[in-house]
Each structure stands twice: as C-alpha cells, then as structure tokens.
C-alpha cells in the first residue's frame, strides 16, 4: 500500500481506493477480514481516524461489512456490480483517449481505426 502525503487525494480516499482495487481484482477474497483499524494505522503511520474513515467509505460502497468487535470482512462481490465497476473504469480510460485525441487534433474516425487496430493486434 502506497500513501502519498501531497497528492491532492485525501489519505483516507487513497486507502479506500487501494482496498477497493484489491477486492474487485479478487486479491482480497470474500469473507476475508481487513487488517484491524488501529493495526493498519500503526503500520502505515497514519491516524486511527483516517483508517476508520477509509473503512467506512468501503462499507458505504457495499464492499465490506462491519462486525461489532471483530472488524470488517469482504462481502461477496456481485458479478453484475463487478461488471459495472469495470465498465466505469473502461469508460474513464476511453475518455482519456478521446481527450488526448482532441488535443492532438486526431479525428474521431482515426481514433476508432486506431482502437480497432489495437484490438486486432492483441488477438
């Protein structure tokens, strides 16, 4: 886990994002417990309240469930939701490609052609 102090992204958000990635990629499996709030704070040298907020964020997104006195475990990931998450990521990358194309003055047809070419080269 990498925490940047001055990235402009709040530290709790960075932690939440990295756990989210691990959960969605399956690196953290269903039923597995996240590290304890105070343990993670100690290991990452950040405040307890920051880790708490990160875990609450994950809970809000339905990725984990809190159990009184035991901690937070990873929820079963709904395949529909997973697809949705990946779709959002895909859209984000494509939007980046579009804005790069606009900056360079590349036409939409050229952009689509490039994408097709890249897909073909991957096969």
């Amino acid at each position, binding site marked *: 886990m990498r925490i940047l102090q001055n990235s402009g992204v*709040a530290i709790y958000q960075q932690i939440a994002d990295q756990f989210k990635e691990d959960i969605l990629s399956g690196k953290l499996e269903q039923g597995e417990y996240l590290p304890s709030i*105070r343990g993670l*704070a*100690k290991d990452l*040298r950040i*405040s*307890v309240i920051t880790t708490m907020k990160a875990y609450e964020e994950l809970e809000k997104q339905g990725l984990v469930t809190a159990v009184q006195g035991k901690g937070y475990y990873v929820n079963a990931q709904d395949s529909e939701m997973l697809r949705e998450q990946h779709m959002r990521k895909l859209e984000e990358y494509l939007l980046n490609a579009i804005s790069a194309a606009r900056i360079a003055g590349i036409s939409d047809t050229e952009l689509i052609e490039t994408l097709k070419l890249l897909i073909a080269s991957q096969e």
Partner: protein
Amino acid sequence: MNIESIVRGSHITKQFKGFKVDIDSLNIPKGFATALIGENGAGKSTLMNILAGVRLDYKGDIIYFDGNMKPEEIRENIAYTSPVNYFMPNWTIEQVGDAGRLLFEHFDYDRYRQLLIDMDVKAPEGKRSKDKAIGKLSDGMKMKVELSAAFARETKLLLLDEPASPLDPLMRDKLCSMISAYIDEGSGEKSVFFSTHNIADMENITDYAMIMEQGKIVEQGFVEDLKEKYIMVKGNRADAEQAKEILYTIQTNPYGFEGICLDENLDKLSGMDISTEIPTLSQISVAVMKHYTKLAA
C-alpha cells in the same frame, strides 16, 4: 460513529492575573490520539496540569474513565510527562526506575530499561554506561527518561505535555511510533492526550485536535472532519481584494494570494481562477490561531 470519552470536564476555570483558562466542556475521545494545539501561553500546560492532578486550585468538574474507578485506580491508569523538571535532579535513571516500582503497581522495570536503550539514553546490556544524575542530562535526554518511565507502566491514558519539543527529529519519529503502538495495543481502550505548539511532526498520528487560544478551546474535531471543514485556496493577485472578504485567513504577495477558506464559503469564490488543496493540520491550526488572535486584537 459512536465515540466515548475517556475524560469529561465541565466548566473548568482557573483565574490568573490578567488571564483565565476557561473551558466550558472538555471531551477527550477514547481510543484515539488527541492533540492540544496552541501558542505559548495559550493555557495548554495549565489544562494539562489540571488534568494530571498537578494543579488543584481550579474550579470545575472532571470525570475520568466514566467515573467507574476509585482515585487510586485512576492514578494507576494515567501516566503523565511534564516539560519541566519532573524527577529529583540528583536521582539517577536507575533510581527513577526504583521510584516507579515503588509508586505504581504495574511498572515494568525490564521494559523501562529496554525503552532507555531503544531511545539511546542507556548503552545496551553488557556495555558499561555511566549512571549520571538526571539534573546533569540535556533536556532531550530528560524527556526520554520521562517517556520511558511513562511507557513502562500499564496504563489506559497518557497525558504528555509538550513531549516532542525537546526531542530531535529522529526521536520525534520514534515517539510517534510509540504512541501508535500504544493506541494499537489498547484496541480502543487506550488513549493519548498530548500538547504541542508545533503540530507538524505529530500530525500523521493525530486523530482529534483541540486548538486553544487565550485560555479557551476555540476549535476542535476529528482531523478528517477538520480537513473537510477548511480548505486551502490559492489565487491571482487581481482577485485578492475580493477574496479577502470571503476567506477565513488570507496572505497576499505581489503574485497572488493564499489562505484558508471555510468549505461552506467556497461557492462564493466561483468565478475566480483558484486552485484548492486539502490543508494540513498545521495549516488549519495556524489559520484558526490567526483568526482568533485577530478577533481578540
């Protein structure tokens, strides 16, 4: 979030000549590290002394540990370190350890020795080290002895008055680790309340901040909430005059302005070409102190 308090105080006042510490309500959250931040002379040490039982000439009520403990239990469960000479100056570090064992039921002598070695006060076992009198040690060394004696005890609350000030950067870092480890091993039962006039070194491990100005707590909250309440704004010189009306604190120079804005007022800056940043706790503290100093002047 359901937050309990480890110490609750109400209407704590102490009148000095021309200065009054006046704290209407005090709640130190349980299971967290809380920083008491303020300028020199803001009343931090007075509050610390009152909480630690060093100063008894105050008015008000203080309840420790939910009021469930007997006075001797309270004493056993709180460790305190002070920025002024705390031990008898002619005692050696060995004698400080002996006194700790005499005074407290749960004083781990081996842990005390280990902490002294970890903090470079004492040479590792097997090597000879001079047992100097405490009064002959430097301020940094004295603080390290105090911290060793405090962390060697089995407690539920640490009251640390300016623990970082006399320490070098490496030792401040070590102190942060010690506080984190203490909070972690308590799993929500152990709390730390420390004062500082320089929060930058301790900011990463601070959960809750209380900012004191002229004897009063003028702002407090969980750091994550404070970082949403205040926002750092930077903009162009041309907008500085207008921004001055809206910002909480502002500094201008020939090239532009920067300052802290209340998040709720950020909308009022729309139309200006600005960049925003999440402020650090020290930036928030300085802004709050400036704001209240200006108000008082």
